[in-house]
């Protein structure tokens, strides 16, 4: 009897584990496994309508402003083809910067403005000392056309990337 | 050496809690796991040796 109980418990446990895994996978597949949609996806109507979703792209240079109310931040998310203006009330993450990657969760209004309730910074896979980043940036601006220099800063990046941070 | 002072090293530019939280838990796991396996080995050896002695005794006294 004991062995049979054990087997039953085992099968139930395995089924529960498989069910849990399947639920995660289906949940992920349901969202098409995309964590965010690009502004082009949104313009193409690929993003869910009247539902909370995430947009991702770069914070367009020179668009980050504080609204007159003093707490709402405004910026434009771009994939360099299309732009979406975003409004967000809250604390921006450390790595949030103009010209850098961002993922914002919220709803797209009728007016085409995306009201975010969460903003996450998306950084790239490059790691280097600030001096190297500065040198790269200089080479980039000089238009040396060095194919080896990876574009850490998207085209049009203005500020030296090595802003001292606290 | 990259650091100017020991306190700079600990502070990690304000990320101390995150950096040391990562290294600390990793170190803890990598100390505990071999310790537990070594202890398992000792207790397993002792238990099996005891069983063996008990079996030997049983055979001696039918």
């Amino acid at each position, binding site marked *: 009897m004991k062995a049979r109980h054990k087997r039953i418990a085992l099968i139930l446990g395995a089924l529960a584990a498989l069910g849990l*895994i399947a639920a*995660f996978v289906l949940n992920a597949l349901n969202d098409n*496994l995309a*964590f965010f949609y690009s502004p082009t996806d949104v313009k193409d109507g690929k993003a869910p309508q009247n539902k909370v979703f995430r947009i991702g792209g770069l914070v367009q240079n020179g668009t980050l402003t504080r609204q007159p109310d003093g707490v709402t931040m405004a910026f434009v998310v771009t994939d360099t083809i299309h732009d979406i203006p975003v409004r967000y009330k809250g604390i921006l993450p450390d790595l949030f910067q103009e010209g850098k990657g961002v993922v914002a969760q919220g709803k797209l209004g009728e007016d085409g403005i995306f009201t975010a309730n969460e*903003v996450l910074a998306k950084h790239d896979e490059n790691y280097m000392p600030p001096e190297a980043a500065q040198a790269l940036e200089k080479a980039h601006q000089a238009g040396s056309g060095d194919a080896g220099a990876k574009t850490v800063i998207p085209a049009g990046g203005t500020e030296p990337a090595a802003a001292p941070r606290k | 050496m990259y650091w100017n002072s020991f306190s700079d090293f600990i502070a990690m530019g304000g990320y101390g809690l*995150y*950096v040391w939280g990562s290294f600390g838990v990793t170190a803890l796991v990598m100390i505990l796991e071999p310790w537990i*396996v070594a202890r398992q080995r000792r207790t397993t050896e002792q238990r099996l040796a005891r069983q063996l002695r008990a079996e030997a005794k049983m055979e001696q006294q039918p």
Partner: protein
Amino acid sequence: MSSIHWFKYSAPSTFYPLAGKLIPWFWALFAGFALAGLWLGLLVAPTDFQQGEGYRIIFVHVGASWMSMFIYLVMAFWAGLGLAFNTRLSGMMAQALAPTGALFAFISLWTGALWGKPMWGAWWVWDARLTSELILLFLYMGFIALTHAIDDTRRADKAGAILALVGVVNVPIIYFSVKWWNTLHQGASVSLTKAPAMASIMLWGMLLCALAMWMYSIAVALMRVRVIILERERHTDWVKELLSSR
């Protein structure tokens, strides 16, 4: 290596003392790589242009993540070998690797959370990379639970092998998730197809730390497989001899 040697060492009675001899060497290699890696990563490597000192989590995070995936592949390989050829040692090897793999998956998720909070702004997100790594941890735990719940070791090994082999599909999903889908997690800094996107000191520190974890995994897995061999072979003459000589 002749096939005779191969089969000789796949016998538990010869593998047990061999493993015992190898363990101290792997611990020594671990200590060397760990000291070098931590020295480079924590004391020598410069700060990062984006993440400041926070990026130093990379020195434990990447190695642990690699090991969590690699150990799963090795575990599934042994499990599959046992399923195909019914070799005794294979199931024990798979058993010995699972807890270490699970711990590395846990370390990967833990350090990832501590890295994500200050940099991204969230401890956790359900993106494809993070979700598939969590599934990897569940697969390890499922394997351990399943094999421990069945008393008959042969059947336990078989059931575990099937679970391990089915779960293999998750490993490429973890690895390529950042390529296949939009994820919050960034792409690979180091891969076989392109030049590393890291300054060389940082890269060396990371690789040495990963090598240290590799040596650690081998040492701990060998320690554990010895315990499993003792337990499973307790009725054989060589184990009885070994125990009585103590």
